[in-house]
């Protein structure tokens, strides 16, 4: 049991609005943690703070890299990613004009620090190619390897979304609404994919999700955010039984 990601009184204000309010969390490497909460609870802002897209108003973020917790509070997004914190996006954000393989190649080049390599051919690194093939296999994307992303279905793009984030071999993997906009069949596929990834990959998963079935299925631990602050946290059954949680949800939005 090791803490890999820690926030300490993390706060972010937009003018008068406090979007994230003194969140202190510890994410453990053995668990799949889900962060849930009604719309506007601050989940996306929280992710943007973690990944360096937004700067916190106050508080600190620490990430385990090279065996110790280091502060990454002020690091820009690319530094955060290099230290091992990776994310997928709620609204699909892949390189549309590139093939699936090229998408993953971008991630591998970034991971291997070869972004300033002008000389070799992009696809000439055998180790990287193997890694990409393995990822394609793992995410069931092999048959689309050479298809441009803008020709893929929504469900397939969601997989590319996940594969991309995985390709940089993260310590912590933030999944932002992995089943957003999916039909039940596609959702089931993603859930089984997450299970599979959790088994095969040595990364810690943090998931935000609307679909409660998905949440209960995959989570070891649940954190509930409401109005930017932590409302409850703990084992799924325990948290979901919490009255305040039901209230927070029913108060704003029926499930």
């Amino acid at each position, binding site marked *: 049991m090791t803490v890999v990601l820690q926030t300490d009184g993390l706060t972010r204000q937009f003018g008068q609005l406090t979007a994230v309010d003194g969140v202190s969390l510890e994410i453990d490497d053995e668990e799949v943690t889900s962060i849930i909460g009604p719309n506007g609870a601050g989940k996306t802002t929280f992710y943007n703070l973690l990944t360096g897209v937004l700067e916190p108003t106050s508080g600190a973020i620490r990430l385990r890299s090279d065996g110790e917790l280091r502060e990454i509070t002020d690091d820009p997004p690319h530094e955060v990613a290099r230290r091992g914190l990776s994310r997928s996006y709620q609204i699909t954000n892949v*390189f*549309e004009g590139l093939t699936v393989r090229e998408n993953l190649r971008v991630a591998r080049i*970034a*991971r291997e620090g070869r972004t300033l390599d002008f000389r*070799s051919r992009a696809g000439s690194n055998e180790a990287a190619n193997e890694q990409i093939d393995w990822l394609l296999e793992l995410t069931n994307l092999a048959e689309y390897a050479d298809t441009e992303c*803008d020709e893929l279905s929504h469900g397939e793009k969601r997989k590319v979304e996940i594969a991309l*984030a995985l390709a940089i071999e993260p310590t912590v993997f933030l999944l932002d609404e992995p089943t957003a906009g999916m039909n039940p069949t596609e959702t089931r596929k993603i859930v089984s994919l997450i299970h599979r990834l959790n088994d095969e990959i040595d990364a810690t998963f943090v998931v935000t999700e609307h679909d409660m079935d998905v949440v209960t299925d995959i989570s070891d631990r649940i954190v509930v955010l409401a109005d930017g602050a932590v409302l409850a946290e703990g084992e799924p059954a325990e948290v979901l039984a919490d009255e305040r949680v039901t209230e927070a949800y029913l108060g704003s939005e029926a499930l």
Partner: protein
Amino acid sequence: MSTHDDSVTSRIGEFTRDAVRNGWTRERCVVLLSLGLLLFGVVAPSFQIYLFTEFLIIALFALAFNLLYGYTGLLSFGHAMFLAGGSYGLAIFLQESEPYVSNVVGAGPAPLVSWVLGAVFAVSLVIAMAVPIGWLSVRLEEIYFALITLAFGMLVYSVIIQNPQGLTAGSDGINVLLGVTEIGGAEFRLGDRQIYYYLTLGIVGASTYGIWRIVNSPFGTICKSIRESPERAAALGVDVRFHRWMTFIVSAAFVGIAGVLIAGLSNVASPYHAHWSESATAVVATVIGGATYFAGPIIGAFVYLYARWGISRYPALEAHWEFFMGVLIILVVLYFKVGAAGGLYMLRTWLLDVQAAYRRGGANAAVGFVRESATNKLRRDSDASESDTGGVER
């Protein structure tokens, strides 16, 4: 003797049969193209060699510009400053240093040595300009990037016009004469039409290959990812701003090479090379040709320059050539969404389809296919007003 001829003939025959059998592979096309370009310098009329040399230089200018625009998604409206940087770098070096070079290496090889050193100096100067200008410019994106590069470009233009320290000769520009080189009794003039054509061909060819390698390298892959989604690239660990800066510098350096070449061709380093309208040339050539294809800027430069030349041959058109260029630009943007290169690419796909139809069912099938696709095309055009979402294919 006859056996030799036979072997050549049979080899050509074999090559042709191969080509027909296997289709036109990329390697064969490149070989044929290179042969054509080499022969061109011998057989073409003298003026055509001049025009083609100019085309090659403008093509390199547009190609280098497109490294930043088409591959990284940043539209620079001030790239002419690097063209001028290359021109003036060479001109100033020749003006100030040629006598010293001559003292060191002797009068014979001096012109050639000076030119080489001048070219190196010019490209270094361009890089020295691009490092700070790029560092500042890549802080901005989209239209703001276009505007700040426009402002930097016009700043450079203003400085050149002011003739600082008597270096740039103000609005007159500096004449660049490439003299006679004498090495080991052999004399040649670098500025000679044919020699300059081959020199340009070699440098532009090598630069094109270099740019092609860059866009297909890991660096180039990152460029494309930034074009598609800078946010996502950053989330994968790419330092987007730094990478854009590097692309800016590389792009500028190749434009600098084009600048060195244009000064030698037109024999002058002129402030016009720095003006925003010169930057517009690269933009227009790239858009005409198609920014999403590697060869787009090359084809665009060809269309641009040869359309201008074609117009100049007709006095009635020449008097109002800007009108026709304007109409051409408007029509291309409106009706050729993927540029001329895209049009050619679609034509090629279509021809291959016709060929496939011919293989399947002979001439009748091919004619049928042509008729069918033409009807489809017409039908699609009439529907286009409703369903047309347009968009550049990427």
